[in-house]
C-alpha cells in the first residue's frame, strides 16, 4: 500500500541431460544483450514485480498500489521532488533547481522548470502541466487523495517555465505535492479528455527516462509491463534497450525465477529462509528498513472495532514481540517491535507511543468487562447478542503475512476473540476493499515519504466515503478530535522545530485512540544477480529499488 506522502531409463536421462546442455548453450538469461555502439541502448532486462497495479491513472483511487509507482510511475512521469535512498527530498530532473518557499502568508512556492524538460512528443513541460494536475486532483471524481492540493489557492502559469503555487493556508508537507506518489501530467494531451480512460490501462506519453513499449500495448495484463527508453528524455538516457517487469505474485516462484536467472532482480517481501537461498545461489542483496511500517489496521467504522475498548483490548491481547521474533527475525536476521507509525529512522520525530501495549490478558479482561462484554460458553466475548468476532485480510501469496495472521488469530483466540482469515489479491485489496471500507481488520504496510505528517492517514477529513467518491487515505475510518487537532497542526506548521511537538502529540493521540497497531518497520529485500545486471544498485524504500533504472547496465 502506498501512502501518497507521504538401461533405457538411464539412456533417457543421459539424452535429456545432453539436450538440456544443448539448449542451455543458447540459453538467454534475464539480463542479456550486447552494447552495439556507444550510447545506443540495447539488450533486454527481465525483472520481477511481485504485484500488478490495478490501474495507471496515478491520481485515481484505483492506483493505490506502490508497485505501480515503482515500476511504471517513476519511470515514465516527472515529479517535482524525488526521494533519495537516504530518505531525503531532492528536486526532480524536471526542475532547474530547488523550489523556493515564501512562508507568507500567503505561503507561496515557486517551482523553476528545467528549460530542457519536455514530453516524449517534444512539447515542453510547463507551469500549465502543474496547474492541470492540481485541478484534476481537486475537481475530479474518484481521486486517491487530495491532501495538500486542497490547500492550494491558485497556480500562476504566466511564466511557462516557473509554476508559482499560492496556498490558502500553510502546508508543511508541500514537498510531497507534485511528487510523492503523484506525478505531473501532460495538460496538452489530457485537457478536455477523460484522463482516467486515457491513462488507466497505460499510456504512450512520457516525461521520464522510460516509456511504455507501444503505449497501452506495453502492459500485457496479468503478465508483464515492458518499458523502452524515451528518446526525448533530457536527463540520463538508459543504456538498456528494453526492460520487462514480469508479474510473479508467488514468493516461491519469484525466488526460483531469481535463482535460475530467469529474472535479474526482484524486490520480494522477505520470508523465512530466503536469505540463505540467495546466499547459496550467489545472489547479491541488501536488506533495509525504511519508511514502511507493517501494522494491524482496524476499521473503526466496523464492529467490533467501532468500540475503543475492543481496539485497546485487541492490542493488549497481541504479543507483537513474538510476531517479530517468529516472522521478521528468521527472515532478515534482525528486527524489533515498532512503537509508533512514525518510524525510528526519523529520530527527531519518533516517539515510542505504543510501548505500553504489551500482551496483558488481565487488561483485556478489564477493558472488555468494563465495556459490557461477557465471555460466552465458547470462550468468546459477546455483548448484546453479538460476538467479538471479525475478519482479518491481507494480500494473498505472502507467506510471512499468512503466518502473522495465524499467530495473531491464535493469540486473540486465547484472549476471547474469534478471528477469521479472508485474504484477497493485492490489487483488489488496495484498489477496492480497503479504500471502500470492506474490511474489519487488515494486515499491510504503508509506505511513507520523508514527511512525518500522518493527517493523510488518520485525520477524519480524509475518510473515504461513498459521498466523497472514496477520496482519502484514512482507510481505518479513524475519527478523533485529538488526532485531528494534533496532526492538522503538524501539517500546518512549516517550521520543522516547532513541528516536533505537534508530531509528538499526534503519536500520543494515535496510541490513546488505538487507531491501529504498528508491528514493525517492514524490512525490504532488494536482490539481484550480479552476473546479469550492474550499475548503482541500491534500495529506495519510498521509490522502490528501480528508482534509478536508467542508470542500470547489463552484464
Amino acid at each position: 500500500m502506498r501512502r501518497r506522502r507521504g538401461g533405457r531409463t538411464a539412456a533417457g536421462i543421459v539424452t535429456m541431460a545432453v539436450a538440456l546442455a544443448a539448449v542451455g548453450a543458447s540459453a538467454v538469461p534475464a539480463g542479456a544483450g550486447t552494447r552495439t555502439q556507444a550510447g545506443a541502448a540495447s539488450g533486454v532486462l527481465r525483472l520481477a514485480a511481485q504485484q500488478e497495479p490495478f490501474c495507471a491513472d496515478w491520481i485515481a483511487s484505483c492506483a493505490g498500489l506502490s508497485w505501480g509507482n515503482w515500476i511504471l510511475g517513476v519511470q515514465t512521469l516527472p515529479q517535482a521532488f524525488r526521494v533519495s535512498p537516504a530518505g531525503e527530498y531532492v528536486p526532480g530532473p524536471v526542475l532547474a533547481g530547488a523550489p523556493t518557499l515564501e512562508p507568507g502568508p500567503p505561503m507561496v512556492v515557486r517551482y523553476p522548470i528545467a528549460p530542457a524538460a519536455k514530453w516524449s512528443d517534444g512539447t515542453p513541460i510547463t507551469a500549465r502541466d502543474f496547474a492541470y494536475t492540481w485541478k484534476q486532483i481537486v475537481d475530479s471524481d474518484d481521486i486517491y487523495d487530495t491532501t495538500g492540493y486542497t490547500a492550494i489557492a491558485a497556480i500562476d502559469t504566466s511564466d511557462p517555465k516557473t509554476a508559482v503555487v499560492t496556498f490558502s493556508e500553510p502546508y508543511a508537507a508541500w514537498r510531497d505535492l507534485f511528487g510523492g506518489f503523484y506525478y505531473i501530467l501532460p495538460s496538452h494531451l489530457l485537457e478536455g479528455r477523460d484522463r482516467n480512460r486515457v491513462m488507466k490501462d497505460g499510456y504512450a506519453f512520457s516525461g521520464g527516462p522510460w516509456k511504455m513499449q507501444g503505449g497501452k500495448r506495453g502492459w500485457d495484463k496479468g503478465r508483464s509491463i515492458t518499458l523502452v527508453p524515451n528518446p526525448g528524455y533530457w536527463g540520463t538516457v538508459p543504456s538498456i534497450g528494453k526492460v520487462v517487469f514480469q508479474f510473479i505474485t508467488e514468493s516461491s516462484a519469484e525466488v526460483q525465477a531469481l535463482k535460475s536467472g530467469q529474472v535479474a532482480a526482484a524486490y520480494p517481501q522477505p520470508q523465512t529462509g530466503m536469505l540463505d537461498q540467495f546466499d547459496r545461489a550467489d545472489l547479491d542483496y541488501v536488506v533495509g528498513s525504511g519508511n514502511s511500517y507493517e501494522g494491524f489496521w482496524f476499521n473503526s467504522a466496523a464492529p467490533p472495532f467501532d468500540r475503543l475498548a475492543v481496539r485497546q483490548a485487541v492490542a493488549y491481547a497481541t504479543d507483537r514481540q513474538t510476531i517479530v521474533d517468529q516472522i521478521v527475525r528468521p527472515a532478515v536476521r534482525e528486527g524489533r517491535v515498532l512503537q509508533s507509525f512514525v518510524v525510528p529512522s526519523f529520530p527527531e520525530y519518533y516517539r515510542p507511543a505504543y510501548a505500553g501495549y504489551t500482551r496483558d490478558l488481565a487488561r483485556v479482561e478489564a477493558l472488555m468487562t468494563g465495556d459490557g462484554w461477557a465471555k460466552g460458553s465458547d470462550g468468546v466475548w459477546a455483548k448484546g447478542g453479538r460476538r467479538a468476532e471479525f475478519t482479518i485480510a491481507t494480500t494473498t501469496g505472502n507467506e510471512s503475512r499468512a503466518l502473522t495472521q495465524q499467530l495473531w488469530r491464535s493469540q486473540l483466540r486465547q484472549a476471547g476473540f474469534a478471528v477469521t482469515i479472508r485474504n484477497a489479491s493485492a490489487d483488489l485489496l488496495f484498489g477496492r476493499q480497503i479504500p471502500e471500507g470492506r474490511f474489519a481488520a487488515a494486515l499491510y504496510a504503508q509506505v511513507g515519504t520523508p514527511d512525518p505528517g500522518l493527517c493523510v492517514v488518520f485525520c477524519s477529513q480524509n475518510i473515504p466515503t461513498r459521498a466523497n467518491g472514496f477520496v482519502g487515505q484514512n482507510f481505518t475510518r479513524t475519527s478523533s478530535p485529538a488526532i485531528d487537532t494534533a496532526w492538522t497542526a503538524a501539517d500546518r506548521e512549516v517550521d520543522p522545530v516547532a513541528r516536533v511537538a505537534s508530531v509528538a502529540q499526534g503519536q500520543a493521540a494515535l496510541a490513546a485512540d488505538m487507531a491501529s497497531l504498528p508491528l514493525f518497520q517492514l524490512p525490504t529485500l532488494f536482490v539481484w544477480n550480479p552476473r546479469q545486471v550492474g550499475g548503482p544498485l541500491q534500495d529506495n524504500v519510498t521509490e522502490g529499488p528501480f528508482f534509478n533504472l536508467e542508470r542500470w547496465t547489463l552484464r
Partner: protein
Amino acid sequence: MGRYVLRRVLVSIPVLVLASVLVFVVVRSFGVDPARVRCETSRDAGCLERVRAQLGLDRPLAVQYLDEMRGVVTGDWGRSLRSDRSVAELIGDALAATAPLVGWAMVVSLVLAVVIAVSGARRPGSTRDHAFGALAIAGLALPTFWFGLLAIQLFTYDLPRWLGIDGPVLYSVPDPTGRGPVAAARELALPVLVLSVQLVAGWSRYQRAALIEELQADHVRTARAKGLRERRVVWKHGLRGSSTAMVTVVALDAGALIGGVVITERVFSRPGMGTLLVSSVSDGDTAVLIPWLLVAGAAVVLANLIADVAYALLDPRVRIAGPRSA
C-alpha cells in the same frame, strides 16, 4: 456415423442447458451482487437502482437467466465487474494461454501412459511391471503443488548447475520476451510435466488392466495362432480393443484437469483459465465467473462427446446399439 454423432450432440444440449441453469442459480443466489460491485465507487446515490435496471437485475431470475444465455449465444458476454475488460476477451485470452498447456499435457500423458501400459501388460508381474506400478502409485500420491516446486528446483536450478550451464534451460515462469517454438517448449516443459504426472499414473494403470484382459480375448488368441508377430498382436489387436476403457477415463479426467490447471498455473505464475477462476472467485466477479463455468462445463461436455465418437470409431457395435435397435 453421422447420425450417431448428431444423436450424441442432441443429447449433449440438455446437459449443457441443465449445467447453465445450475451455474446461474448458484452464482446469482450465493455470489456477490454485480450492481453493488459496480456502484461501490460511485457518488451517485441512485447508482444501485440504475445499474440494477441496466443489468436487468430487477427482473425475475428466470428472465435474467434467459438474458444471460442470449448474451452467451450471441457473443455478448458483458464486461468484468473488476477490471471492466470484455469477459469474452478475458476468457479468450485465458483459454489461449491454457490450451497449449492442457493440449500438450494430454498428448504427453496419452503417449507415456500407453507406452507404460503396453510395457507392463506384455509381461505382467515382471520387475519392470512392478516398477511402473510403484511409480504410478507414487505419481498418484504426489500432490501437484509439491511436485511442481520440486520440479522447478531440480530442472531450473540444480540440474543446470550440475551440468555447468550458466542461465536457465527450462523456465519456471513464463518468458514474456520469448518467441518461437524453442522458447515455447522451454516455458511449457515443466508445467506440462507437472500436469501430466497424475494423468500418466492413472491412465497407465487403467490401460494396463484393460490390455491384459484384452490380450486374453479370443480374437487375440486367433491372431497369435495365425502367426502374427507379438508386437503387431499387442499394438493392433490388443490395444484397439482395450482403448475404450482409456477413452472413458480420459473423458472423465477432462473435468478433473481443471483442478490441476488451477494449481499448475499458480505454481508457475502462468495466466490462464485456472488463474482467471481464482481471481474471479476471490474478487466476487460474477460477470466473469458465470461465463467461465459455462465454458468449463461446455469443455467437459465436448470431451465426453469426443469420447462417444471415439467409442464408435474404436468399436462399431456402439454405433449400432442406438435407440432405434434397442
